[in-house]
């Protein structure tokens, strides 16, 4: 037996020490039991919910946008699947140096600078913190393969299949189609986008914007069970709402007519054109030059950004047919004529002596080139484009507001009601506007509204600012006898199976009375101008097999060469289609705008002829 040591606790002293340790043990176990009770019994529900939430991840399945078709069913825009490089920033290496290496390598692979990578991430985080950031869309398969093979080097990088808009014909109808893009933070607050989330794509311009709610599908949602690394576990698909693809949009645009117009305009230079059914407002063709390939907008390079957004002169994104603002020259004369006739200022038969020049208040107003046309009545004045005839009408109406009232009725200087978002500011000069303008100190010289101002307007010169769309409405009203249709490109919506889900019904915006006699007289004049003898555009349309009524215009623009215009109603004498074209710095109307209109009309009527001969007969 071992010797007992005196200092060793024994008996009651040992018992005390054991009891203290025992007491500590009791307290510690009590703490554990209490804590266990607290977690499992008292807060169990909360933790169970948290655990359930923990193991699922919602994966959004993006719905493809609907296609956009032309009126014949030809595809103008569809989708192609593409691979997008996504980065889950939470899974980047914590070490800044490693993170830097990974990002730099990613940047190199996807042709982005490290700064751009970081900026993209920062922007993505700002929109949706925590959501994966799309670094680059449309990456190549070899890059994807490389990243998948070297997954260890790229923590947090994933490749997602996404839909990218595809434009089979490049720039065709680019301004009408518009573009799609990720929804902006501001837009998320708008009511029509309330079901959307950051990162969703919406139409940003053109028909994509206007008909977004039809084209945009509904994203699907799949909840999948994941482990702690966020990897799906086998058989772990829980709930799934499949994505609903967007419906297809059929446009009123006729792809062939559109192509003809674009090709014709491209030869002549900057400008715009529109061709529209004067009764229904269906737009057959609407274009602008310079144009762009919408594909460029998806992932523009710096050079493309400079070209698309920075070059004010070319401004390819501007739809000159609807957003342009120009004086129109002589094609405005039908409005002057209508105003004068309807207000009894003149009759169709009344003859006016055109000496090539008048003087008002000491200021001379001359015919183009100073030509004297001699005695002219309405029909001849329109045919040869006698300025003096219309100067005198402008002079006669300068103290009344008659000219402005009719111009306003016919749609000049006011919203045209187009179904696309792109409509520019325009201006119809009037006495009231002029006085306001002067009062605000914006005019160059402080002088009252003068007869000269009205004379300028009567021939489509001066301060007038309008565009082919508004002129098309005015001509349409003349052609149909006083009805302003609603110009539109949306025809109908079809579901994925091709069934028509919705037909758009665009009623006329307003109607007013135009005396049939006056209308006939003006159309006669226009027909003569386009296709008879000395007509200003006879050189262009003389050989055209279909009878038309058309008017040339040559607008004077400060600091620019004259702008060429042409407006046509066809077929004459019972027109159904109005076609207006303008070419900036294109010279005389017959020089450049008229040939563009001719190209469009040829496309329309050749096609019609072909359809008729083949037994068809749409239109």
């Amino acid at each position, binding site marked *: 037996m071992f010797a007992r040591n005196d200092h060793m606790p024994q008996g009651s002293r040992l018992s005390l020490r054991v009891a203290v340790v025992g007491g500590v043990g009791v307290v510690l176990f009590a703490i554990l039991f209490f804590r266990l009770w607290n977690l499992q019994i008292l807060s169990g529900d909360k933790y169970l919910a948290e655990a359930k939430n923990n193991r699922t991840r919602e994966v959004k399945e993006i719905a493809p946008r609907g296609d956009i078709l032309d009126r014949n069913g030809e595809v103008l825009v569809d989708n192609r699947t593409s691979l997008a490089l996504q980065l889950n920033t939470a899974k980047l290496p914590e070490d800044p140096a490693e993170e830097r290496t990974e990002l730099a390598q990613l940047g190199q692979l996807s042709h982005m600078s490290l700064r751009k990578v970081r900026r993209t991430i920062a922007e993505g985080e700002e929109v949706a913190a925590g959501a994966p950031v799309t670094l680059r869309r449309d990456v190549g398969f070899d890059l994807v393969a490389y990243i998948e093979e070297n997954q260890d080097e790229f923590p947090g990088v994933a490749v997602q299949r996404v839909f990218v808009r595809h434009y089979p014909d490049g720039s065709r109808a680019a301004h009408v189609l518009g573009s799609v893009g990720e929804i902006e933070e501001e837009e998320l607050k708008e009511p029509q986008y309330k079901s959307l989330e950051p990162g969703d794509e919406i139409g940003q311009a053109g028909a994509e914007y206007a008909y977004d709610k039809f084209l945009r599908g509904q994203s699907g949602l799949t909840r999948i069970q994941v*482990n702690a690394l966020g990897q799906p576990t086998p058989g772990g698909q829980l709930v799934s709402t499949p994505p609903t693809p967007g419906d297809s949009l059929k446009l009123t645009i006729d792809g062939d007519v559109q192509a003809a117009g674009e090709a014709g305009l491209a030869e002549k230079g900057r400008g715009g054109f529109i061709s529209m059914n004067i009764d229904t407002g269906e737009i057959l063709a609407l274009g602008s030059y310079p144009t762009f390939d919408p594909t460029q907008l998806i992932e523009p390079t710096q050079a493309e950004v400079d070209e698309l957004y920075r070059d004010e002169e070319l401004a390819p994104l501007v739809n000159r047919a609807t957003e342009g603002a120009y004086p129109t020259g002589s094609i405005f004369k039908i409005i002057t004529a209508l105003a004068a006739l309807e207000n009894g200022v003149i009759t169709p038969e009344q003859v006016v002596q055109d000496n090539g020049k008048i003087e008002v208040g000491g200021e001379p107003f001359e015919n183009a080139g100073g030509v004297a046309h001699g005695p002219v009545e309405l029909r001849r004045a329109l045919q040869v484009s006698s300025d003096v005839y219309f100067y005198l009408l402008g002079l006669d109406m300068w103290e009344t507001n008659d000219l402005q009232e009719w111009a306003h009725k016919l749609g000049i200087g006011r919203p045209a009601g187009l179904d696309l978002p792109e409509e520019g500011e325009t201006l119809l000069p009037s006495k009231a506007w002029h006085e306001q303008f002067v009062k605000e100190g914006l005019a160059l010289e402080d002088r009252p509204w003068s007869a000269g101002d009205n004379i300028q307007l009567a021939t489509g010169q001066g301060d007038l600012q309008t565009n082919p769309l508004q002129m098309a409405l005015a001509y349409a009203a003349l052609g149909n006898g006083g009805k302003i249709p609603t110009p539109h490109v949306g025809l109908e919506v079809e579901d994925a199976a091709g069934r028509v889900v919705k037909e758009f019904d665009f009623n006329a915006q307003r109607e007013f009375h135009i005396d049939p006699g006056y209308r006939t007289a003006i159309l006669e004049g226009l027909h003569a101008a386009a296709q008879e003898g000395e007509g200003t555009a006879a050189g262009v349309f003389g050989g055209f097999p279909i009878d038309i009524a058309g008017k040339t215009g040559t607008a004077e623009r400060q600091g620019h060469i004259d702008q060429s215009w042409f407006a046509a109603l066809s077929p004459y004498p019972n027109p159904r289609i109005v076609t207006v074209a303008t070419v900036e710095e294109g010279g005389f109307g017959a020089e450049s705008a008229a040939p563009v209109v001719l190209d469009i009309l040829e496309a329309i009527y050749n096609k019609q002829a072909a359809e008729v001969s083949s037994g068809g007969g749409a239109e």
Partner: protein
Amino acid sequence: MNTYATRTRNARPEPFAVRVGIAERLGLAHMDWPLTIAAFALIAFSVFVLGEATQNDIPGDPHYYLERQAIYAGLGIVGMMLMTRIDYSRFRELRVGIYTFLCASVSLVFVFGFAARGSRRSFELPFFSFQPSELGKLLLVLALAGFVIDGARRGSAVQRTVRYLCLGLAPAGLVFLQPDLGTSLVYVVATLAVMYFGGVAWTHFAVIGGALVAFVAIVLVVAPAAGVPLLKGYQEERLTSFLSPHEHEGGAGYQQNQSKVAIGSGQFAGRGDRATQTRLDFVPERHTDFIFAVIGERYGFMGAAFVLSLYALLFWRALRITTLSKNAYGTLVAGGIAVALLFQTFVNVGMNLGIMPITGIPLPLMSYGGSSVLATFLAIGVLQSINVQAHLSQRGRFAW
């Protein structure tokens, strides 16, 4: 009266009066049965839980952890039985050798050790990696108890206290440098426990306690502020993150949050195979440090409370043995083992429940791992030996 007489220590042994039964032959006769049952129940539960919860961990080998833990359990039980039959008092004579072996083995890890996750703790043996610091817990208690008995008459009380402390803290320091913070803390606690049962004055403990507080303050607050970090970043984060788990959701706090969610989601009856937290990797180290979370989630409050009760039983029986021991050495050894088991259990379960820092201390007899299972069974064997010897000496009989 007669009965009383035979139970006195000084009674003469009756030669050849014993009919030695089978139980006595196997050394089972005087084992503490509640302690044995608690240990067996815990290891059985451990093997069961590992079998249920780790089936998908090793692809193609669903029973990897189950089989190995069962083998460790078998080896551990054999070791326990052997220990039961040895008179633990011999270890007192071997204290210097044990202490030397302890220091040498935890040092050798630095030379031959197998580095796992940046720390060298174990030797890679053909069938399993042996972690000497686990066995070291028992060795430290055995040796230090010997030193305490031995040194009782040498030097002043303060000198003795300082000597014991140094003897205990030396291996603790070596283990800390491996680095294995958790195990070194167990060493410190075991050292203090042996000293405590060895009769070190309460005032000394008060001073030691004060010094500890100051030390912790220096390590965690003053030194980093002065630009001399003593702990590795992950160590400090683990130690402090439980105080504010939401600040550390991505790192050390993440594990504890997930563990808490796992346990909480088990509610009363547990989620069984529908357990997701511990099945889908949300809780890390689920077969070792966080196995209690697995129990909590799969078997709910019923299972977890049952397991905790077994630990309470284990602790109670171990503590009881300190009072039965035939000698002071046995009291010290049993006290050291009992407190070490309590400390490990509390720190590990507390860590799982989110009220203690993450220190990497395994749950005795529950966490997967050969070294820990074996060392714990050997320690329980030593407790059994103390119990057996106490009974034998009370009967005035030596082992056959």
